[in-house]
């Protein structure tokens, strides 16, 4: 089996550097977009992204598949980093320092692109969806909750949640596509 056929959960469970690198490639843009949307500060988003992955690298042995998808675990770390940054007014660098990683200075071009990631106002688009779709899309896409968690919360099946999210996203794709 080559690494590219492994799931994120399998990649995270392996200890070798190449597996973590692939996991990073799968998730980096999502994490960057997550921070860009929430902070509206590209430089802070870049710092938080780096700190989140450094924390994930340092603590990946604590990840347990039984507790949920790898992405949910990663975004749990991201949410904590965001809360810390809001509390302190800046992005922590504890994990990067522990790993001997210097702060990466984003270029102007980096900042411009990160800003673009954050400018897509998904939240306002979600508001136009029917409530049953809007709620699950918001929870799954913006708040990063997994299908199983949502199904438990809504006392319904995972299949129903998947269907609602899928329909909601299809509607959103149409709306984004119809923008000038």
């Amino acid at each position, binding site marked *: 089996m080559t690494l590219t056929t492994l799931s994120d959960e399998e990649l995270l469970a392996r200890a070798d550097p190449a597996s973590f*690198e692939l996991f990073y490639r799968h998730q980096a843009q999502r994490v960057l977009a997550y921070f860009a949307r929430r902070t509206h500060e590209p430089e802070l988003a870049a710092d938080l992204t*780096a700190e989140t992955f450094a924390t994930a690298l340092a603590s990946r042995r604590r990840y347990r598949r039984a507790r949920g998808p790898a992405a949910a675990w990663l975004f749990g770390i991201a949410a904590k980093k965001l809360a810390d940054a809001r*509390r*302190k007014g800046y992005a922590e660098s504890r994990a990067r*320092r*522990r790993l*001997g*990683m210097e702060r990466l200075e984003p270029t102007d071009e*980096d900042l411009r692109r990160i800003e673009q990631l954050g400018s897509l106002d998904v939240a306002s688009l979600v508001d136009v969806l029917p409530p049953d779709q809007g709620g699950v899309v918001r929870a799954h896409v913006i708040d990063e909750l997994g299908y199983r968690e949502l199904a438990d919360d809504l006392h319904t099946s995972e299949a129903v949640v998947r269907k609602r999210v899928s329909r909601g996203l299809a509607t959103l794709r149409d709306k984004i596509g119809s923008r000038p």
Partner: protein
Amino acid sequence: VSEDFVTRLQLQLREAAEREEQRGRLARSVRSIARGARPVTLAHAAAFALVAAVLAYAGYLATALRGDERPAKRQSGVVARFTPGEALDDVVGGFGSAWVSDTGGNAVLRIDPRTHRVVARIRVGGGDLGLAVGAGSLWALQYNASGPNGPLLRIDPRTNRVVARIALTMRSGVPVAAAGVVASHDNVWVIGAGGAYRLDPASGRFTVAVPVRVGAYIIDSASLDGSALWLGVTDGRLIRLDPRTGVRERVLRVHVMPITVSGALLAVGQYEVRRIDPDSGRALWRVPVGTIYRYNRAGGLLWVDGSASHGPFARLSALDPRTGRVVAAYDTRDFQPEALAAVGPEVWVALNSGRVIVARR
């Protein structure tokens, strides 16, 4: 999207992952020796001798990475390293002791600086703590991940007990948004992103509020001594306040974080330290010290952790505040500090791994 940043971060993470992997191999090698692995035939003896030599060196390195519980007998340099807690966040010296916040153990530890033994373990609840010593007490600001910070705890050094939990509000009920606490002989200030607030130690009330217009910027640093409270703002301003009244006395444009050491106003940037003329804001000298993560004054010197230019381990440098000359530099063989502080004539460094490193010039 943003491939440059993402790719550079990928390379950084790859290097870090490879270093982590090497450290894991090293630790496993040392553990196998500790379990008593032996050569079973004479034919293995020569190979074993070579392996033993390599592993002895590996053991030395692993000890450096793991931390050595024995205080060293050296008189200068890194003189001791030990592990009093689970995850240390801050350290201060005062009342003949070192005080360390142990986030992992939800406690403030009081440590005897001669024996390195924990003499009191003060339970404070969960979360990180910022510590300061002044006005006859130890002050601990509780950081909360899911809401406003606080309360501010007052710890009596005679009883090692929390004697007050001070709510972060002005008398008017207006909340005090706190990000840190600083204290001197008779002043205690809580610093927030948009202002500074003086606590009257006698009444336990906040009596002075100094809002600082920061717009999109924040106050990111503060230094307090008997004569001035300096606030560093990320828009480049360095604001001097009277520490008793909060009256604004001076505003400089410096773009770095302030600290006063033996009467000299120093400014700590990301890569260098400058001495600043407090009247004009002019730099009197500049000294590059690698990438600076933490700094503090101790024994009349400025101590900085300028790690990155020397690899992943922390390197402590001590600067003479008058001349900028680096009078001492020590490799700690450990990862970068969370905080460093003067404890008597020594510098104590608190690490997230739960270890403390003690250095002496």
